[in-house]
């Protein structure tokens, strides 16, 4: 029921988030979040600023304890260091003054957590070159990474996360500083990687549109609550109105989706429980 398209059993899921709530400084930032991701699936995590996307990533990475609920990664409970997850954080500090090439950043993805100086240069170099080719970043392999454009840096960071061969790739707002063309290129690259290498991708964004062509499923976060399912199932006025706790309209214009908050509804909107059987997506816990 929760994953209508694939009818999976829980054991096959690469990521199973089950009833996760997170309290930060006395405020419930995430409430009863539940969704599942299958191997090779491309999932968008959509929500506006402050919705809790980064917090959810931190929970999945084991960096933030959840107050309730559980997370299984590859069928196992969370551990601090999970080699099957690759991560591209929202903020990466790449100072142009740093003597660091794109290839050095990618190599750190291979073994940056290990102590000691790296050995086996030839093998490392081959692995790094292959990875740079895979994300189409070989051209600027030897450029100073701080001088690269936003889109180029994003490719380098994706290579950095992929070189350790994860089965689940988490990307926190990788499209944030990109223009429309770079956005399209990065999304196409990620979709290709997900398909060819069967890596599940969970990508957060505040706008659903760049991901529409490639997304298998999405998880929509608003007001601490989430709804998950396919685009058609989740991006609907009833579902999103229930999430936001106020009336919103969903407009489809030239293949783009606009979610518009209507005029301020009456205070204390009553949200009716949507009929799960008829609607499909699991709207999670309406309070």
């Amino acid at each position: 029921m929760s994953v209508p398209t694939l009818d999976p059993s829980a054991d096959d899921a690469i990521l199973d988030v089950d009833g996760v709530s997170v309290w930060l400084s006395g405020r419930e930032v995430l409430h009863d979040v539940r969704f599942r991701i299958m191997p090779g699936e491309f999932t968008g995590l959509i929500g506006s600023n402050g919705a809790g996307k980064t917090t959810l990533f931190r929970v999945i990475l084991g960096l933030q304890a959840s107050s309730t609920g559980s997370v299984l990664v590859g069928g196992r409970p969370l551990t601090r260091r999970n080699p099957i997850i690759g991560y591209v954080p929202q903020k990466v500090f790449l100072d142009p003054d740093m003597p660091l090439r794109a290839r050095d950043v990618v190599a750190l993805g291979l073994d940056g957590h290990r102590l000691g100086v790296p050995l086996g240069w030839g093998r490392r170099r081959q692995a790094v070159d292959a990875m740079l080719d895979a994300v189409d970043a070989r051209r600027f392999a030897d450029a100073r990474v701080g001088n690269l454009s936003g889109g180029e840096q994003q490719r380098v960071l994706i290579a950095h996360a992929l070189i350790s061969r994860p089965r689940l790739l988490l990307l926190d707002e990788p499209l944030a500083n990109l223009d429309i063309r770079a956005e399209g290129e990065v999304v196409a690259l990620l979709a290709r990687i997900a398909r060819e290498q069967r890596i599940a991708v969970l990508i957060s964004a505040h706008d659903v549109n760049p991901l529409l062509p490639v997304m298998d499923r999405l998880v929509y976060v608003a007001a601490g609550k989430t709804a998950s399912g396919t685009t058609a199932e989740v991006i609907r006025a009833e579902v999103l109105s229930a999430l936001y706790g106020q009336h919103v309209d969903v407009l489809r214009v030239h293949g783009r989706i606009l979610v518009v908050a209507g005029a301020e509804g009456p205070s204390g909107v009553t949200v009716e429980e949507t009929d799960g059987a008829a609607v499909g997506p699991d709207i999670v816990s309406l309070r």
Partner: protein
Amino acid sequence: MVNTWIAATLVAVIAGVVGFFVVLRGAAFVAHAIPHGAFGGAAGAVLIGVNPIAGLGVFAVGGALGIGWLGRRGRHDVATALALVLMLGLGALFLSFSVEYAAAIYSLLFGEVLGVPSDELLPIAGLGIACIAALAVLYRPLMLTSIAPEVAEARGVGAQRIETGFLLVVALAATMTVPVVGVLLMFSLMIGPAATAGSLTRSPRNAIALSVLLALATVWIAVAVSYLTNLPVGFFVGTLGAVSYGCARIWTARRRGRTAPA
């Protein structure tokens, strides 16, 4: 004179390597604060009649641990400033009690590179090797936490522990080099060559090597010229550091300008 050359060479190698990581991590203020604050410890040691180097070491390590602990969340600069003023304040207090020894302490500020006794060379070399070995062990996590601390955390690297380890290396380097070259010189030797190297080359390995070479050239020239002119070594090291960095920036800016499409 031979001792001077050996000491200066050891100090330059250590400053060049440690300085690379200081510049990479944007920790110039910490590298400024630890040796300067440690100076207060030396004053205290003189007051109670123990070897000033012991006082230097205690303050340097204490300062490093304090900065690491206070700066756990986010930026270090406030923690660093607090540690610095606290240690300097204590230093001023100690100095006010021990007027007759002020000269010995004064030499710590500017170093006595032209009068290094032979029995100090071995400890300097030992501590230097320890510093460089520690940096070699921490090399990859230091690089990773410099660019993406969250990724490092997610991969099981305790960013906080790595940071504290790094601060301790800076403290160790300061303890051993300050008595030779002085507080002022140590700082300029850590920052100038490493910053210059970082702007001239792109690969971290080359930058470390170049940083060491530039630090060596700087001290050798400074010691030689100071010997000939009888002017303080610190003056030449500081000036060479600033001038070489300035030249490197101008050179890279020119080169970039030339390769850009007209």
